[in-house]
């Protein structure tokens, strides 16, 4: 058997989404066209927009479709920065590169100053730091961006508190990992903008959305036909949008069942490897993400060995050359680079079963033994 434990990277499309997409693919019509077929496509897109808006608790006009979560984050970080005369960008130190890198780009090319919010050993942002920062420099801060939950550890961040501390400062949240998995209300959180992505929730690849307050204008990254409030030009990807809405509506993610599998897995790991450490274990976490350090190993060896045993998991970070790199998330939590390179992420999803957990645990002892041996050779 083969076991897929990398649902945080991408998760299978659910059947209803595949059906909805297949049906939409055979329909003719550009949603921006004025004729019959165009109007029919437009209706499908707007139906989908309303469904998505209901799910994230926003107004339909606040949903701006993009080609990915990365694009939505780029649009938000750059757009909110360009919209403001202020120069300081505040982000958490554990953001996904889709937030961190546009912020760094603005530092390099647009004269921004970047301040990163540190996190605790359990991977939760330091609210006292943020409070002190806002108290001292609120007049200079263009935006604050804190992810709703971390993609490597699954640790959930106190976004409501961040918004409260921020006051009038726009707050963006990358909610790609949280959306559809834990309660998430754009409206209740009082966010300025938020990112979601299709392929993390049983929808297709290549579709995301920026949720952005009504009547807020931000400069566009893509210029053209003026779609999506003139913020994101480009022919609307009707089949993917329809499929995303179908996936969200289907709610195939059983959070309680998935959390149970994850807990069983973590308990099983600690039984066979008592020296293993579950990162962020004392913080509130997503149901399905487990980040575990196996001391004395190297995660790229472990991944190869797990893959050979037909268990798919993730090492977290890799550079453009594909070389495994120490995770900035784990390092921000205080792990050394060596320890952070001994960690694997296992992420559970809607298709996992008890048998998957049992199988993964059955191959783990040999994999860790060999991983330890491989690492010992390297130190020779």
């Amino acid at each position: 058997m083969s076991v897929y434990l990398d649902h945080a990277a991408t998760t299978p499309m659910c059947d209803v989404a595949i059906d909805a997409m297949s049906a939409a693919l055979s329909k003719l019509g550009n949603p921006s066209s004025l004729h019959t077929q165009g109007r029919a496509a437009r209706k499908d897109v707007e139906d989908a927009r309303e469904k998505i808006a209901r799910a994230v608790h926003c107004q339909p006009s606040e949903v701006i479709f993009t080609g990915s979560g990365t694009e939505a984050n780029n649009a938000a970080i750059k757009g909110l920065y360009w919209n403001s005369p202020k120069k300081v960008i505040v982000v958490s130190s554990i953001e996904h590169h889709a937030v961190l890198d546009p912020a760094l780009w603005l530092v390099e090319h647009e004269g921004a100053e970047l301040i990163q919010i540190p996190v605790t050993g359990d991977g939760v942002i330091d609210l006292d730091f943020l409070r002190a920062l806002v108290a001292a420099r609120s007049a200079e801060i263009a935006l604050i961006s804190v992810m709703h939950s971390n993609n490597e550890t699954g640790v959930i961040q106190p976004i409501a508190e961040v918004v409260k501390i921020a006051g009038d400062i726009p707050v963006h949240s990358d909610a790609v990992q949280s959306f559809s998995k834990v309660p998430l209300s754009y409206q209740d959180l009082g966010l300025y903008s938020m990112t979601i992505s299709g392929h993390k929730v049983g929808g297709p690849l290549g579709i995301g959305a920026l949720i952005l307050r009504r009547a807020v204008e931000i400069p566009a990254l893509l210029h053209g036909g003026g779609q999506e409030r003139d913020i994101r030009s480009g022919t609307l990807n009707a089949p993917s949008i329809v499929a995303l809405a179908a996936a969200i509506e289907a709610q195939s993610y059983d959070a309680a069942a998935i959390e149970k599998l994850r807990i069983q897995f973590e308990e099983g790991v600690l039984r066979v490897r008592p020296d293993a450490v579950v990162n962020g274990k004392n913080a509130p976490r997503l149901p399905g993400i487990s980040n575990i350090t196996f001391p004395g190993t190297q995660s790229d060896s472990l991944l190869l060995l797990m893959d050979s045993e037909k268990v798919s998991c993730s090492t977290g970070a890799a550079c453009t050359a594909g070389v495994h790199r120490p995770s900035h998330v784990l390092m921000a939590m205080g792990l050394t680079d060596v320890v952070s390179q001994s960690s694997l992420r296992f992420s559970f999803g809607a298709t996992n079963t008890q048998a998957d957990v049992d199988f993964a645990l059955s191959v783990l002892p040999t994999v860790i033994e060999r991983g330890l041996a491989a690492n010992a050779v390297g130190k020779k």
Partner: protein
Amino acid sequence: MKIIAAMSGGVDSAVAAARAVEAGHEVIGVHLALSSNPQKYRSGARGCCTIEDSHDARRAADVIGIPFYIWDMADEFHEGVVENFMSEYAAGRTPNPCLRCNEKIKFAAVLDRAKAMGFDGVVTGHYARTEETNEGRTLHRAIDPLKDQSYVLAVLNREQINGAIFPLGDTEKVDIRIEAEKRGLAVAQKPDSHDICFVPSGDNAGWLRDRLGSEVGPIVDQDGTKIGEHKGAYTYTIGQRKGLGLSVAAPDGSPRFVLKIEPVTNTVVVGAREDLAVSSMRGERPIFCGPVVGAAPERGFVQVRAHGAALDCTYYLDGEHLVAELDEPLLGLATGQAMVIYDGDRVVGSATICETA
């Protein structure tokens, strides 16, 4: 067997991996990231460690249908190969980093790691052959004399040879390209890599000057008379004639050649062509991949450069040194180079040249 295919992104290692799969092995492709700061694109025929090369390797693995991973060996490579290259030059010797890489990285760090992870060996695209004999596995020249790489593999010991598979030794390069084409490998016509992979400019002297500095020193003749100045002794090689910048001609008007590099005094010694002649060499750290050589003289061939000629010689072990006495003198031989002894096409062993006479 379960084996690791070291895949550089070139045509040879891709075909080697494909042949290993066809031979019935369970093969996993691994690309070695040897630079911690790789260039994005390959420039000309140099280097093999760009991101483009790693993509080529991945694509080949996907086409062959084997798993593929990247192993970060940048630290090991820097420590074992690049630093050694610099310190050898600084000491007035001429090292061969490819040989060193085979000895320290491909068939040491990689093979050891592979074995620890439960693999049986490493397959590479080197042109060489192995044979199973009563005395164990032996290493031989490839049938393509232009591509034969047994010289750079002669640093492997018996255990390393036992963990190595070279599927290309029985084929000529031109046929490997045709085979790659047939297998649908996009790297079929990718140019061969030449020169030293971590010196992408190809300018070894410039690369060394940037790292070791360029301390001016004397160029002297064999009497010790100063006849010029150089900018860093290590940028010269034994036998070099061009680029000496000497304004004083030799008494008989004949050209002068680098005879010796003395790193301690930062001196380059030059002399006539006939003074380059070497009739015997002595090597340290001998390695034997087949039966160990004894003190009794034996007849064979010695090769001192990657694609140099096989020179008739008598060889024997003198204490810890491997000695080769040439039938015909050789012009210009630097210490630091590897001497590889052959018995016909079989590699007997190798050593690092420490003395010539």
